[in-house]
């Protein structure tokens, strides 16, 4: 261990991990290269596209803009922590049913943003969905079926009448 590559410890998807990297290495690169969690993607490197979104300490962040040192002690959730092949997260199931993923490259970040949204607003309005996902660019879907997926996931989780409320603009 040296001052130039301090040991940085944090939790990813419930598992404690320690890495020894330059403190200015991007959290995105730590996840992808050091931890081989390649679900989180790089689309722009400028915090504009959201495909690098992860949840850090209960908040949505663009991991391309987080220096590794600032992840010390953090609890991080990536798409790999969302569901498994045998047990998809309701959002993942909804995206599958409604066509929320086409090429799939924005999907991990989009799922993180949607998860964050539903954690704060379990029955979001359409305006809240649009705002919650505005930082995640999708070039394939035109967002329409992503909105439907979030509405469907929210509906399954809660009140069935939520589907009507969310459709009202």
């Amino acid at each position: 261990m040296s001052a130039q590559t301090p040991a940085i410890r944090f939790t990813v998807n419930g598992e404690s991990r320690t890495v020894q990297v330059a403190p200015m290495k991007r959290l995105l690169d730590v996840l992808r290269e050091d931890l081989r969690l390649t679900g989180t993607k790089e689309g722009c490197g400028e915090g504009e596209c959201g495909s690098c979104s992860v949840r850090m300490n209960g908040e949505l962040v663009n991991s391309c803009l987080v220096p590794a040192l600032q992840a010390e002690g953090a609890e991080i959730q990536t798409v790999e922590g969302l569901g498994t092949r045998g047990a998809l997260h309701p959002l993942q199931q909804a995206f599958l049913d409604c066509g929320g993923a086409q090429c799939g490259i924005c999907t991990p970040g989009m799922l993180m943003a949607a998860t964050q949204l539903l954690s704060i607003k379990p029955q979001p309005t359409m305006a809240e969905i649009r705002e919650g996902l505005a930082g995640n660019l999708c070039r394939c879907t035109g967002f329409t079926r992503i909105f439907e997926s979030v509405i469907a996931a929210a509906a399954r989780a809660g009140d069935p009448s939520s589907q009507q409320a969310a459709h009202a603009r």
Partner: protein
Amino acid sequence: MGAIAKTRIVGAPVPRKEGVDKLLGRARYVDDIEREGMIYGATVRSTIPRGLIRTIHFDPGIDWEAFTVVSAADIPGKNHIQLIFADQPCLADGVVNHCDEAVLLLAHADKCSLRAAVEAVRIEYEPLPAVLSIEESEKQEVTVWGADNVLKQFLLEKGDVDSVWASAAHIVEGEYRTGAQEHLYIENNGVIAEWSAEAGVTVWGSLQCPYYVHKSLLAVFDLPEDKVRVVQTETGGAFGGKEDYPSTLAAHAALLAKKSGRVVKMVYDRMEDLAATTKRHPSRIRHRTALDVNGKLLAMDIDVATDGGAYSTLSSTVLSRATLHSPGPYVCPNVRVRSHAWATNTVPYGAFRGFGAPQAVFAIERHMDEIAAAICMDPVELRRRNFLHDGDTTATEQVMREPVILDQLLDRALRESDYYAKREQFALRNQSAAVKRGMGIAAFYHGSGFTGSGERYLNSLAGIDVIPEGKVRVLVANTEFGQGTNTILAQICAEAIGLDYGDVIMAPVDTDVVPNSGPTVASRTSMVVGRLIERAGAQLVTMLREHAGLGEQFSREEFFAACERYRAAQGEVKSMCRYEAPPNVFWDDQKYRGEAYPAYAWSIQVAQVAVDTVTYSAELEEFWSVQEVGRVLNPVLAGGQIEGGIAQGIGYALYEKVVLKNGHMANNQMTNYIMPTAEDVPPIHVYFEEIPFQYGGYGAKGIGELPHDGPAPAILNAIRNATGVGFSAIPLLPEDLFVQLAAREQAVEAAVL
């Protein structure tokens, strides 16, 4: 034309074949792949638009021995990227013809050292005069390509246009311009390459057309076909931007792999991808139109000019489609289209969803509204009076033998959007509102598949095989990049045989494994390749019945048992089909006449726009799209294609501007190349009609590109309706609206004072 066949799987919203992996974050895109001993490649690019390379300086502060350095001199075969013509070099050799042209390649194990090395190469040029616009190229004062800067030209003639002007009741002229547009796939271009003396070149990459890449690599490396292998990795969006560009990137990575003896990964970052790779051709289209006293079209004289960039690449075929789509879905006895693709010293323009049609449709559909205004006719009525119907002929003398239901589509679009009621309401409210609203329409077709004899030339081969594990594999070179290739071809296969969707898997898109079923472009996959798979499925069942005792009815178990009997006797269980052209599709490339496309998809789109006179910004409030597409193979995927295409069309119209400074893209970051976000895309309503096309997979025609053709003119027509001002260039930004709207305000103020 037949009724829609009753099917179990085709037409059902089955889930995306590779969807679960994508949702789990397990899908492996090229940058997710690590290989033992892999090193990284980077490109040194030109900083001027045109000039001779005088010297290349390597800063002595770098230990160049530690780097692999590749130049044109290292190319074993031909220094060109084989596409249609072979004018584009793989690496610049002594001369550069556009900014960001690749000159040198570097490789190193450490990405940071690599970056420093790229910065440490300094190229000295002797600049040459550069041509940076269609107008400059047309002047032909400076020749930058061939003898006359003309990459390609066409002349399409029907009847005698010039005989009509003198007697026409109305003549209306207009000029329409479209800007470059960037694909902005969220996954940048990337390739991994490996070289060995035994196996030759292998590349894995984010790409649309493995056999295009294969063909290019044969020329660059002077290798036989079995010594080049191309594998598609999961591809994060393409839209045409990965149709030809990957051939260049693959050659670059492979050259570094050969020289270094290592596996080389080259993945662009966003700034490089934006600056250096292909975009949609900018266009300038002029219309001169004669009509009779009832608003019926008498003559259309059309001049199409595109900017092709520094090398020809796909400019000839883009120009062809633009030419053939420029007259619109209308009957007109006299048509002349003169089209040119001009060379400029900018990054070569390439394929992008629509491929010349968005440009052409923008012009004709804006022009129809200008005509309507000039002759004081309702723009909807003007279109109705001139629509193509069954039995009419197009500008290329193609007889519409398949049904054309534009009237029906229009009726539905008007009804769903409440077009007339809203137009009336808005007209009243606009008089005193700061936000002015309007409705606009666009009517258009999109020719499915390659133009004319293109499919015959491609001569696609596709099919299926059965593996002992009890799965049927679809063998195609067609790629999934979000549009649903895997899903719909598996659906077609399962349906054609009589199995379940889960019984079918896609063979890896690997030129060692799959045949050349043609590129994944031109909205041909469902129609052409789908049909091949449909035939191959039926053919397999016949083979098993004739040679392996499969009964008339059969269960899954019986099917796979018959396959194993067949395998025991024949060695493999495989059913391949070769493309068969539909009858009566004849195209004369010289006269530019005949059946331009075997089938057309038709659409009417309606836009509702709000123009804020405080900020001069136009926003789309709601959008309706009605389309006849032959057969909807999967409603979720088909709907997604229409919505996604419309979103890109909205960007094309109102947000996406490529800012060039001396031929280099100055806004090459996502912060200032603006695409619509989740807050900018309005509710989009999609309605399908289906008239099965006999020669398409289960009746399907193409749909991938169709939806991108209409939004721009529909939106600008709505802006015209809202403001009374006709804008003729896209992207139409608030700063552009401001120029005309503010001028009008000042005129009004002055009049009042």
